[in-house]
């Protein structure tokens, strides 16, 4: 089989102002992932590397640049799956971590469980000495603006995509 890596950067009502940024980001993610796939031959390494790229880019709704809860907080989720033996690792309600997909992988590889969330996930993050990041890294002006707009509009039309310019919400 010819190795392949395919990535997505989110689906929704993506505003014009965000189009080029999204294309640049998914191309960068796919190229990094493919390089890791060729070097290691391991799909999980490639998947984690490609998603870490997008988790760092504020133009994507994951990691840095995540959308906000009604109370202005970031609560992230991630899932990683391995087809060989149907194994998986998942996290939810994750706070102040840089790479949720990497923590999901640690849950799969270092616990007897598949899915961790809330206080138990916090204990696991501490036990594994996973580095934390502050809200100053995770929360962007765009996300704050999108939440303001969402509340102004009476909290209708859940959005997952944010425009590049304040006021451009998905």
């Amino acid at each position: 089989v010819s190795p392949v890596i395919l990535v997505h950067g989110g689906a929704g009502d993506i505003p014009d102002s965000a189009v080029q940024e999204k294309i640049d980001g998914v191309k960068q993610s796919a190229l990094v992932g493919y390089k890791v796939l060729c070097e290691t031959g391991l799909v999980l390494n490639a998947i984690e590397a490609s998603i870490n790229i997008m988790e760092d880019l504020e133009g994507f709704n994951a990691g840095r640049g995540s959308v906000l809860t009604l109370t202005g907080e970031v609560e992230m989720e991630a899932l990683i799956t391995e087809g060989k033996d149907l194994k998986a690792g998942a996290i939810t309600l994750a706070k102040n971590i840089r790479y949720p997909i990497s923590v999901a992988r640690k849950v799969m590889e270092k616990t007897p469980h598949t899915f961790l969330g809330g206080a138990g996930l916090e204990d696991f993050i501490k036990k594994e000495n996973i580095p934390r990041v502050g809200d100053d890294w995770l929360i962007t002006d765009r996300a704050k603006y999108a939440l303001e707009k969402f509340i102004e509009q009476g909290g209708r039309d859940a959005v997952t995509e944010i425009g590049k310019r304040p006021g451009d919400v998905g």
Partner: protein
Amino acid sequence: TVGSVAVDSSGHVGSGTSTGGICGKYKGRIGDTPQLGSGGYSDDKVGAVSTTGYGEAIMRYNLAHRILSKMDTGINAQEATKWAVEGMTERIKKTAGAITVSNSGEIGISFTSKRMSWAYVKDGEIHFGIEQGQHEVEKL
């Protein structure tokens, strides 16, 4: 939401999906992304999927696993992905997107929302798009 699916030279597959959720969600809201069969799924016997879009609909429709089940009946990755994504929008009236790779390297990309950014690398080329029907190719 961001996602990735991959197949290696031996046909092993995997998927990954990561998200901040939806803007203005309740504190404590759990979406589709971490749920096996909804935000993603992979099985070496078939392929791997990562989904994105309106989480409450993707969960109810079990979108990721539905795509692989369809492929298990012999339908190729592109047709199965399109069938399931459009089926969910038809049934629940909310939009979504999904990316799929089969254990033989077939590609599936479909979305019912206005746009979905995607890219894949295969055989020395990078393919990408974001509009409905757009498919750009560049040599590496």
